[in-house]
C-alpha cells in the first residue's frame, strides 16, 4: 500500500518541479524572467488589482455570509438542516453556470436593467457586467457558501448559557450581538476570511467572464503569457509568485489551526 503513496507523489510532484524548472530556465539558467516580470508595469498593475478584488470580495462575502450564518444558527436543528440546502446548492453549482446567469442578470438589456427601465419608464442600460461590479458580484456569489460553513460552526460552538446570562443581566440584543456573538465567533470568522481570501487570489474564470480589461487578475496574466505571448518562463515565474503569495497567507493559518487542535 505504500506504493500507492509513492504513485500519488509521482502524479502531483513533477508538474510543480517542472514549473520551477521552466521559470529559471530561459536561454540560460537564471532568474531573469522573475526580474523582468517584477519590473513590468503590467504585472504590478495586475498584482494590485488582484489584491483589491480579492480583498473587497472576501470582506463583502464575510458580511453577507455572516448574515446567513447568524440566521442558520438561530434556527432549530431540523429547520437548519433544511435551510442548509439553500447554501449547499449554490456551493455545488458550477462556476460557469453562475457566470452565464450573471451575464443575463447584469447585462445591458439584462434582468436588472429591464426592471429599472420598467420602473422608471425610460430606457436604462447601466454597465453592470464586464467591469468591477460584475467581477465582485460573481466572486461574492461564489465565496459566500465557503464562508458560511466555518462561521456557522463557530457560532454554534458558543455556549447558549452565555446568551441567557447576558440577557438576564439586562443586555439588549444589539449589545449581546457586539459583546458576545461577535468576539466569540472571531476565531472562526478570521480563519474563514483568510481562507476565502487565499482562494480568491487565484480566481481565473470569474474575472475572465464577468470582468473587463482592468479586472484581470494574476491567474489571467499566467494564462495570457501561456496562450497569447507563448512565454513560458514568464508564465511560470508569475505562477510561482502567485503560489508564494497564497502560501504566505495560508501557512500561518495551517500552523495556527494545528496549534489549536
Amino acid at each position, binding site marked *: 500500500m*505504500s506504493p500507492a503513496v509513492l*504513485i500519488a507523489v509521482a502524479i502531483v510532484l*513533477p*508538474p510543480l518541479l517542472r514549473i520551477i524548472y*521552466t521559470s529559471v530556465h530561459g536561454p540560460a539558467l537564471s532568474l531573469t524572467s522573475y526580474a523582468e516580470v517584477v519590473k513590468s508595469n503590467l504585472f504590478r498593475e495586475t498584482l494590485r488589482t488582484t489584491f483589491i478584488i480579492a480583498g473587497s470580495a472576501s470582506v463583502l462575502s464575510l458580511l453577507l455570509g455572516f*448574515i*446567513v450564518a447568524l440566521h442558520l444558527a438561530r434556527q432549530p436543528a431540523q429547520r437548519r438542516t433544511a435551510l442548509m440546502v439553500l447554501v449547499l*446548492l449554490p456551493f455545488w453549482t458550477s462556476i460557469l453556470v453562475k457566470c452565464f446567469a450573471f451575464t443575463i442578470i447584469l447585462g445591458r438589456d439584462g434582468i436588472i436593467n429591464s426592471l429599472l427601465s420598467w420602473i422608471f419608464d425610460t430606457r436604462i442600460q447601466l454597465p453592470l457586467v464586464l467591469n468591477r461590479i460584475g467581477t465582485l458580484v460573481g466572486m461574492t456569489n461564489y465565496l459566500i457558501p465557503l464562508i458560511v460553513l466555518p462561521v456557522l460552526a463557530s457560532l454554534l460552538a458558543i455556549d447558549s448559557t452565555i446568551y441567557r446570562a447576558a440577557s438576564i443581566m439586562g443586555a439588549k440584543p444589539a449589545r449581546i450581538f457586539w459583546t458576545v456573538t461577535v468576539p466569540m465567533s472571531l476565531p472562526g470568522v478570521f480563519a474563514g476570511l483568510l481562507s476565502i481570501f487565499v482562494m480568491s487570489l487565484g480566481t481565473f474564470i470569474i474575472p475572465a467572464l464577468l470582468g473587463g480589461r482592468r479586472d484581470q487578475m494574476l*491567474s489571467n496574466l499566467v494564462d495570457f503569457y501561456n496562450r497569447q505571448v507563448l512565454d513560458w518562463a514568464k508564465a511560470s515565474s508569475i505562477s510561482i509568485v502567485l503560489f508564494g503569495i497564497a502560501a504566505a497567507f495560508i501557512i500561518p493559518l495551517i500552523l495556527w489551526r494545528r496549534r489549536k487542535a
Partner: protein
Amino acid sequence: MSETIRDSHARRYRILGDALAVAVYLFLLAPILVTIPMAFGSTNALSFPPTSYSLDLFRIFFSSPSWLEPLFQSIEVALGATMVVMLTGVPAGYWIARHEFVGKALITGIIMSPIVIPTVVTGLGLYLYFSYLRINSTTLSLVLGHVAYTLPYVILMIMAGVHKLDRNLEFGAELMGAGLIRMFLTVVVPQLVPSLVSAALFAFLLSFDEVIISWFLTGSNTVTLPVRMFSALEWEVSPVIAAVSTFLTAVSLVVCIVAIRLKKWTPVDA
C-alpha cells in the same frame, strides 16, 4: 413594562435579520433560478422570463456534435479519473492514516498541495510537464491532470473514514495470519463502503465540472463540456448555454442528493 419593550426590540432585530438573510439566500440561488426557466425558453431570444416554453434548447444541445462530443469527452475523462484516483487514493489514504513513516509530513504536504495551490498554477505545471512527456492534448493527460486535482480530496475523505474504524479488527485479522492485502480487502474495504462511494461521487463531480486544468490541457479533439462552455461564454452568449447550465446543475444535484443520502447528513463539517 421594560420586559415588553425589550421583547419588541428583540422582535424587530429578528425580523430585520430574517429579511436580510432571505435577501442573501435569493442572491445565492439567483443563478439557478434564472438559468432553469431560460433553458425551457425559445431558441432565438435571451429574455427572462421566457415568452414561450419548449424543449428546443435541450434538443439542440443533445443533437449538435459541437456540444455532444464535449459531453462524452467529459464523461470519459471523469470516469477514467475517478477510477485511477480511487485505485491510488484509497490505499494511500489508508496507509497515511494508519502508519508512521519517514518524511510523512512532507509527503502528505506534497499530496495535499493542490488544495491550496491556485488551480492555474497546477494547470500550467501539468501543461508544461505533459508537453515534456509529449502527451499533451490527449485524453490520458486530462485523466492524469484530474487525478492530481482530485487526489487530495479523496485521500482526506478516506482518512476520515479510516479514523472511525476500530483498529483492533485489523490487528485481529493480521494475528490470524491474513496478509496485508488480504486484510485490507476483506476487513478494511467492506467497512469503508460509505466513504468509498461518497469519495468516488465527489471525485466524479469535481472532474466533470473542472474548467481550469482542462483549459490548459485540452486540444481541439479533447475539448470537455466545461471548456466548451467557457469558450462559448467568452465569445457569444447563446441560449443553448442555458440548457447546458441546467444539465450541469442537474448532475450536481443528483450526485449531491445521493451523497447526502449515503452520509445520513452530518450538519456542519459536511
